[in-house]
């Protein structure tokens, strides 16, 4: 009974708790300064968050209503409002679940790769980044989203710079430059919107945009351009992706694991939110010039980044290029501008996060055992670390889009979306790009399974249970999501319909 009372008392405050818990946790981690204790605290928080966001997702899906939380009881256009609708609940749940599942992996990986006096700071940054990403997803205020974007970005720069190799510093610096330019362009866009509408609340901007557009459309279109380019930098959409491969390759394994699944996804969310629920209500997305640009850049990214992955010698960089290529799919789905395409894009946010996190977890385990991810050093690891590498193979097959895995489902919806438009070329392009992913994943598989163990791999063995567990959870999820699509497409489809419904 007590539990039920507490739950009903706390429940109205769920939206703020999602941001507040990791923020407070970060503060405590900074004060504790004991690696293991910080890990424990971080893990506790990371496991509470998916429960909260899961309950909110359940509520939103069941009632079909939006959860609104007014900060400090200030009403909507005046104060900052947190809003949880289908779209944000989906992304919130994804980020929190990924953030929790990978926690058991964190302790040993972080202890191995980061000096003991910095571990607590690392967890502080991890929690700050989590708070930032969740804040981006939950806020209903454009400027607040910018602040959260910078919270997550600044902590990400620090996490990347904690990598062992000195190039990590360089990667972090480059990301800092690119990320700040992106965020600043986003603020310029928001500023222009604020000037023409006088509001920062997403819904309020949307409702005032019509009259503002009628009066003068120039600033609104300029805002659209600034915001799209700014967020594209954060998404690592081709050709604004140059920061990503180095950042992922040289960051500590755990940071890469976390960022690959969540950071770009939150930026995608913000782009979808602005394009569809803010601009989309006045300017139908189909008639926006942005759609075609996104389509073209998504396509270009799918191929060029995938080609770069084929010729890469560092496994982490290879997967990072693959991430850029996969972001291309997501952006392509948005650019298709129909319900199937957007469903595919949103479901791919979930599926790609699951698969890519699993792949990077496996590489993190490899770093833990042999300390390198150069392709030459990985040879024969399949037989030395069978549990790790079987899971890697499963997630890899998902990435290729083999039927029976999560990757197939989303590519199927993207193809459907292209077919609805009658764009056969794009259908062909999706299939062709998948074939390229077969080539680069095939290359790494060949090295892992069909070669004699290298010197580095000779003494390797599977990592401890704690590190294997998250990997297998996600690998099995790759298969599960390939058969039962209720959690990915089942949630994404009504959300996509609602997003287009707002336009009509």
């Amino acid at each position, binding site marked *: 009974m007590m539990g039920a009372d507490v739950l009903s008392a706390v429940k109205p405050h769920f939206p703020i708790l999602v941001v507040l818990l990791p923020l407070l946790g970060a503060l405590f981690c900074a004060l504790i300064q004991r690696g293991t204790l910080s890990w424990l605290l971080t893990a506790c928080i990371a496991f509470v968050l998916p429960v909260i966001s899961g309950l909110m997702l359940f509520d939103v899906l069941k009632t079909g209503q939006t959860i609104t939380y007014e900060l400090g009881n200030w009403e909507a256009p005046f104060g900052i409002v947190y809003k949880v609708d289908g779209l944000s609940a989906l992304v919130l749940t994804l980020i929190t679940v990924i953030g929790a599942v990978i926690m058991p992996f964190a302790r040993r990986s972080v202890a191995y790769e980061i000096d003991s006096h910095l571990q607590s700071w690392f967890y502080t940054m991890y929690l700050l980044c989590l708070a930032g990403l969740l804040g981006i997803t939950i806020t209903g205020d454009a400027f607040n989203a910018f602040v959260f974007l910078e919270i997550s970005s600044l902590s990400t*720069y620090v996490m990347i710079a904690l990598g062992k190799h000195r190039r990590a510093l360089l990667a972090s610096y480059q990301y*800092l430059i690119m990320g*700040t330019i992106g965020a600043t362009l986003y603020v310029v866009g928001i*500023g222009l919107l604020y000037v023409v509408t006088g509001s920062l609340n997403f819904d309020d901007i949307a409702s005032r945009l019509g009259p503002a557009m009628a009066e003068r459309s120039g600033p609104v279109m300029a805002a659209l351009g600034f915001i799209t380019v700014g967020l594209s930098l954060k998404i690592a959409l081709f050709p604004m992706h140059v920061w990503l491969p180095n950042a992922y390759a040289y960051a500590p394994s755990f940071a890469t694991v976390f960022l690959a699944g969540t950071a770009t996804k939150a930026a995608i969310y913000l782009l979808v939110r602005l394009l569809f629920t803010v601009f989309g209500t006045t300017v139908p997305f189909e008639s926006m010039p942005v759609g075609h640009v996104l389509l073209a850049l998504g396509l270009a990214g799918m191929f060029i980044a995938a080609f770069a992955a084929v010729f890469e010698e560092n496994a982490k960089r290879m997967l990072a290029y693959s991430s850029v290529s996969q972001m291309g799919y997501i952006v392509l789905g948005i650019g298709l501008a129909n319900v199937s395409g957007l469903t595919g894009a949103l479901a791919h946010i979930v599926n790609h996060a699951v698969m890519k996190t699993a792949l990077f977890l496996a590489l993190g385990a490899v770093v833990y055992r042999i300390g390198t991810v150069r392709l030459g050093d990985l040879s024969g690891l399949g037989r030395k670390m069978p549990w790790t590498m079987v899971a890697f193979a499963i997630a890899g097959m998902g990435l290729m889009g083999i039927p029976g895995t999560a990757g197939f489902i989303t590519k199927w919806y993207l193809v459907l979306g292209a077919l609805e438009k009658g764009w056969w070329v794009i259908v062909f392009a999706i299939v062709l790009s998948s074939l390229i992913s077969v080539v680069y994943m095939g290359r790494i598989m060949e090295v892992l399974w069909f070669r004699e163990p290298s010197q580095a791999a000779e003494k390797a063995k599977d990592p401890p249970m704690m590190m294997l567990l998250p990997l297998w959870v996600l690998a099995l999820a790759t298969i599960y999501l390939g058969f039962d699509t209720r959690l990915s497409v089942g949630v994404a489809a009504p959300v996509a319909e609602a997003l287009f419904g707002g336009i009509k």
Partner: protein
Amino acid sequence: MDQLKVFVTHYNYFITIFLMVAGLYIVIARGNMIKKLIGLSLFQTSVYLLYLSAGKIVGGTAPIYDPAFKFYSNPLPHVLILTAIVVGVSTFALGLALVVRIHEAYGTVEEDEIFAKDDGA
């Protein structure tokens, strides 16, 4: 003549654009990492001006609630920019901290020299 009038009445926006482009140019064209950060800071500063220009009313005072004053400037952009300045300062600080670490690791802050060192190794 009309163009000149637009220029004179909107000079603050032209300064904004100039600062923005100049900052971006420095970021792209300079190889010195500290100069790059200065360019980045300039780029961010231009945005402060964009917001503040929009919030300013000619002849308006600070928003003090008193019968003696009739026109107020909109305080919201100022508050927003206060936040943006904090973000800008922390980005700049973090960037400089990274440059210090890079200097310790590589012994230089020139990008081309750093790339040459890593390629050689």
